[in-house]
């Protein structure tokens, strides 16, 4: 059975219970109704071209569906058809063409992918020069956006401090392809995957510490069996704190509310490590959103939505999220995904509350 046939078979088992729509961050306030799309797919009726681009790939529907229809995967196939037709929004097209040429959706120079470690006061080795063959894998936005560049810098410093050896690929690293696959560009995803895999093999990589939940997800679940241990950096840091190889000495006297990134939390079950890191920090008063952990509300940064905004004007989830944080009395919103940082920061600026990536808080207390 081809993949398309498999999908159609799954779709036919949908009982229209609506649990997907019930958990979908786009439901209700946009024209996007995932249950209805599954119905249309059952009857193979026409779906308006703009509709599939609303999905943020948060994965909630797939998690909730009682029939294992995997609606979020069905969306990817719908997008694939549009991609093969060439009829896709210009902003998405730009991101894909950029990724094809420069191996990152922002179209920044591949030669500058390693810019983040050039000015660090610690030495960062190429992974081939390390003994452990432990690779620190950066997300494209962390490699190029000055706002997010601090994340790899912080993590590198913390690992170094705790005596964990690691290396990087620099300009040889290509986009992980997580978003590219979700946009539906299967061919391009395969190319990125093959390119990265070739490097992993050539340098005998044993372990990968992914700095973004999105990269971790792709490497772990969508690269096939690599025989490589793949973790998110919060897992490593949580363990280091537990072992005592790094000790948060300072205090952080603030009320901090933690936002679960979809690709870390609900899609990969990493809820406790980030929290355990926050909990060890003195003075830090942890708060929880009413919707947290696997029920966390998506910030709408996934599935290509970092590059493309849907036409409808409605309140962003990030705004709802920030509002709740303020209502709960939080002073800082903490998260562990660069996309969440970006989406939350804009409304947070308006409301006068700070957004910090976990590594930023940790750096302040180490």
């Amino acid at each position, binding site marked *: 059975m081809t993949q398309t046939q498999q999908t159609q078979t799954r779709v036919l088992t949908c009982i229209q219970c609506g649990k997907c729509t019930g958990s979908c961050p786009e439901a209700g306030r946009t024209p996007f109704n995932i249950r209805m799309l599954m119905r249309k797919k059952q009857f193979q009726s026409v779906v308006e071209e703009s509709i599939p681009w609303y999905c943020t790939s948060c994965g909630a529907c797939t998690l909730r569906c009682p029939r294992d229809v995997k609606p979020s995967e069905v969306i990817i196939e719908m997008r694939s058809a549009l991609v093969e037709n060439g009829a896709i929004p210009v*902003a998405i097209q730009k991101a894909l063409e950029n990724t094809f040429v420069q191996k990152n959706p*922002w*179209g920044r120079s591949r030669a500058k992918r390693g810019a983040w470690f050039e000015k660090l006061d610690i030495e960062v080795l190429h992974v081939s020069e390390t003994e452990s063959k432990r690779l620190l894998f950066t997300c494209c936005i962390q490699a190029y*956006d000055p*706002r997010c560049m601090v994340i790899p810098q912080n993590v590198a410093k913390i690992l170094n401090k705790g005596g964990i050896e690691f290396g990087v690929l620099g300009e040889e690293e290509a986009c992980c392809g997580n978003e590219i696959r979700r946009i539906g560009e299967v061919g391009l995803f395969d190319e990125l995957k093959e390119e990265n895999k070739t490097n992993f093999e050539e340098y005998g990589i044993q372990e990968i510490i992914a700095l973004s939940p999105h990269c971790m997800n792709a490497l772990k679940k969508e690269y096939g069996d690599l025989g490589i241990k793949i973790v998110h950096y919060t897992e490593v840091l949580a363990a280091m704190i537990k072992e005592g190889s790094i000790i948060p000495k300072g205090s952080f006297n603030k009320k901090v509310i933690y936002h679960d990134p979809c690709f870390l939390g609900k899609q990969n079950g990493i809820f406790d490590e980030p929290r355990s890191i926050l909990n060890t920090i003195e003075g830090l008063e942890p708060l929880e959103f009413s919707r947290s952990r696997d029920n966390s509300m998506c910030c709408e940064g996934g599935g290509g939505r970092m590059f493309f*905004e849907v*036409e409808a*004007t409605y309140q962003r989830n990030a705004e709802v999220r920030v509002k709740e944080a303020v209502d709960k009395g939080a002073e800082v919103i903490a998260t562990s995904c660069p996309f969440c940082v970006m989406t939350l920061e804009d409304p947070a600026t308006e409301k006068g509350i700070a957004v910090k990536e976990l590594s930023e808080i940790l750096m302040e207390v180490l």
Partner: protein
Amino acid sequence: MSYALVVAEVRRGVFEERNLDAIGLCALMEKDISLLVTDNNNEMNQNPPSSPFGKEGLGGFSGEKLVNTIIKVKIEEALFLNPLNMVGVVKTMMDSKGKPDVIVFTHSSSGTELASYVAGYFDLPLITDVNGFDKERDVFFKSYYSDKIFGEFRKAAQGPFVITVRSGSFKEYAVEKTTPPVIETIEDFPIAEGRNFMEYVEEEKAEIDITKAEFLLSVGRGIGNKDEIPDYEKLADLLKATLSGSRPVIDKMWLPKARQVGTSGKTVKPKVYLAMGISGAFQHIAGMKDSDCIIAVNKDPEAPIFQYAHFGIIADIHKVRDKLLEVLKG
């Protein structure tokens, strides 16, 4: 006689300022300059200006004196700026006057069109988009890779050659001659059938597409509130700029979504991008960094936008706006 021929661009009766750069280069090359221009008093022209330098002249000086000879061509401007006719004009002129050392056009939409056709027709060397000239070494500078590298070029064949000149490059070298220009006229030359002017079309306001605008006035969160928008619209109108904005401005619905510049909006590449009250976030920069000229106005000297800007004003944007309105109206 050795001379340089400057083909002037007169559009809708206005002598384009960029012609001065073509004249300036010839002056720098120390050539006797002949200016080929449509006859303004030709009854076929719709808007005959009072002087060959436009309705109002140029900044108060008598431009006629910048050249040695003015060759008036008895032809309607739209026919003159047609490459198929231009080769006929140039041929007629060369037959009577001899070949020039160099034929210089502006590097504009029509200038490049005319220059390449003339070069191809007469089989002459061509160097376009020239923005510098080293007299001693006899080399011309030409931009490569969006101005990242300059190529030094020299003609490698005998006889005349063709050049297009980047606007703003040589204007200051255009100086007045002591004697008034000799006026010559050309009238008998073939008119081609292959291409015909139909009409001028003004870009319609309704179909405004910020990706096609040459000049964007872009406003950011720094404008503060919606009530300020009309004054920025007024400024854009006076400057003949198109108004665009950063995402927060669109989010608040101060401007429509189609006006958003950035990764999740539109990628723009205007000749001038004037950013007012925009900090220069990565997502915004990605959408405008390839503009030819970026001018930023921001009260914060540390705003990242200044790293990408060519020119900057560190000031309150409203004050800059009001002053510009005042200067433009006054």
